[in-house]
């Protein structure tokens, strides 16, 4: 561990008001995530893990406490500036992929570059490279409904990677995938970690958390445990009958 952490939470709290009721989603969380770490955040629903992710991803702001991303306090940034930081620094991967329907894989991957103001030819080149990186270079013109769940999630990962972010935030990325495809995705995340990209993963499956180098358990808006571990190597089992990846 060296230098200032990439993500630094200092006593971050988040309170939602639902009518008259105050919901304390986060009750003072302090943590630091280093560059290249592969962190899994676990916890039951309502433990505050999603809120934590939203704040890390600059989609939400803490009610109190400080959040420094790459050493910069981001709690005072404007909505426009937050969008720019998200665009350049963070890549999102969702449980339900969130690909644009009736739009080719390439164009889906191009989306963050569009908002970064990257020109047409350069955009295509970088989107294609990103698709090749997740092993889908040959399927760039496929639409989401022509692809399996695993392929769709890999397109989503290519989209998250296309603007060369420092952090990938994955919210239950394997929730809609079978076990074999899940391992493929975890393998990809492990490779990204060794390539210097910080991966933060929310999951409730202990199997999936095994592949991370650090596991944080949360309960009732607090960090319950924070342990580093030797990650399990993601080895994709050889293809067998019944492990059909493509949808029926």
């Amino acid at each position, binding site marked *: 561990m060296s230098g200032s952490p990439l993500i630094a939470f200092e006593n971050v709290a988040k309170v939602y008001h639902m009518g008259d009721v105050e919901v304390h989603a986060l009750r003072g969380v302090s943590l630091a995530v280093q560059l290249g770490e592969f962190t899994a955040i676990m916890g039951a629903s309502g433990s505050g893990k999603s809120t934590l992710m939203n704040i890390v991803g600059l989609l939400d702001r803490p009610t109190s406490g400080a959040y420094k991303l790459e050493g910069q306090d981001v709690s005072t940034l404007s*909505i*426009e500036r937050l*969008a720019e930081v998200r665009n350049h620094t963070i890549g999102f991967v969702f449980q339900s992929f969130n690909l644009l329907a009736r739009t080719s894989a390439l164009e889906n991957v191009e*989306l963050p570059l569009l*908002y970064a103001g990257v020109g047409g030819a350069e955009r295509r080149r970088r989107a294609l490279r990103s698709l090749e990186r997740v092993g889908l270079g040959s399927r760039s013109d496929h639409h989401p409904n022509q692809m399996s769940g695993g392929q769709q999630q890999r397109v989503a990962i290519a989209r998250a990677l296309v603007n060369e972010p420092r952090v990938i935030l994955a919210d239950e990325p394997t929730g809609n995938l079978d076990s074999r495809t899940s391992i493929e995705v975890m393998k990809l995340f492990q490779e990204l970690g060794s390539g210097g990209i910080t991966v933060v993963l929310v999951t409730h499956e202990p199997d999936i958390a095994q592949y991370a180098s650090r596991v944080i358990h949360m309960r009732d808006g607090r960090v319950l445990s924070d342990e580093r571990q030797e990650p399990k190597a993601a080895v994709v089992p050889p293809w067998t009958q019944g492990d059909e990846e493509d949808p029926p």
Partner: protein
Amino acid sequence: MNPLQTLRVALRALVRNKMRSFLTTLGVVIGVSAVIAMVAIGDGAKARVEATFAAMGSNMLIVIPGTSTAGGAMGGFGSMPTLTWDDLRAIQTEIPTVRAAAAQLRTNGQVLSEDQNWGTQILGTSPEYFQIRTWYPALGSLFTAGDVDTGTKVVVIGQTVSDKLFGPNANPIGQNVRIRNVPFTVVAVLEKKGQSQWGQDYDDIVVVPVTTYQQKIKGSLKNFIEGSVAVSATSAETTGRAENQIRGLLRDRHRLPLGADDDFSIRNLSEVANAQQEGTRTLTTLLAAIAAVSLLVGGIGIMNIMLVSVTERTREIGLRMAVGAKPGDIRLQFLVEALALAVTGGLIGVALGVFGAWRLATSFGWEVLYRPDVIGIAVGFSGLVGVVFGLYPAHKAARLDPITALRFE
């Protein structure tokens, strides 16, 4: 995002939903095509009315002598000559708003060429008449004031008379015709004027110098004009004033006491023309208003679909925000989508309106007049409709919270 990229993203979104986009534009298409077609037909009708009145003469007044009373039965206007040749000279010289005035003496009679004859209207007048009616010769040259002074036996014939007596496309200049057994030389054929609004053929006429008319065709009273006086005012604006001045002048000259009826009447043809034009203008305005309402309905249709679209694409909006779209980018995207729908509808509407008006006009024999400014305004207005009705949905989209939007089912 630059504007071109925004436009392409918006068009892409519309193309993804072809049927819906088409149905949404339909409202604007119908509105704009209705505006274009209605105004084209309305303007065509107006131009036709204007042309008909222009054929009658420019800024024209007609002074008709008064009534005769015989045994208590009052004759109509013109039944008794009350206008004198001195009155005519006074109208010509004393009223500044009068450009020209000419006596018109009319009768019907047979006109004979060598081998044909034709019953037509015979008009005795002075050269000013042609100026008042803005009527030019198609062949030859008109008779002059000199011909009137000397009572030359020359005749200017209308196109219909020329066709009947000499055959179509003939050149009768220099030929002789006989009217009331008197030989006249044809000096000019008038250019074709067509029919009046009431179906009277303007070209079925022969015109001779007024003095020749009195001497050879129909003898008349010495001092009185047995006919009417045609007057043209200096401009469309002065016709009303000229009418009043002529009335004052004639009442003075006829020594009519205050309160006595006029012993003549003045018809202001430009007033009739204005009334007709007013009618068509009202009709055009009414049609345009109906069309504008349908354009408004089209706009509401766009707003409706854009609101549906925002709801339906909530997750997409959330995703775009997550990957770096600013609220302004989202707002612009939806605004451009609405604008593209409206302007596409507008352009299709123009094409349809131009075609529709042309189709109606040809099948009903109407005239159409396309005005580029109306077409421009219609397209511009449909764009405005797009922006106005797109603003609220776009604003709604831009204000979405990305977290809620991404979780939206």
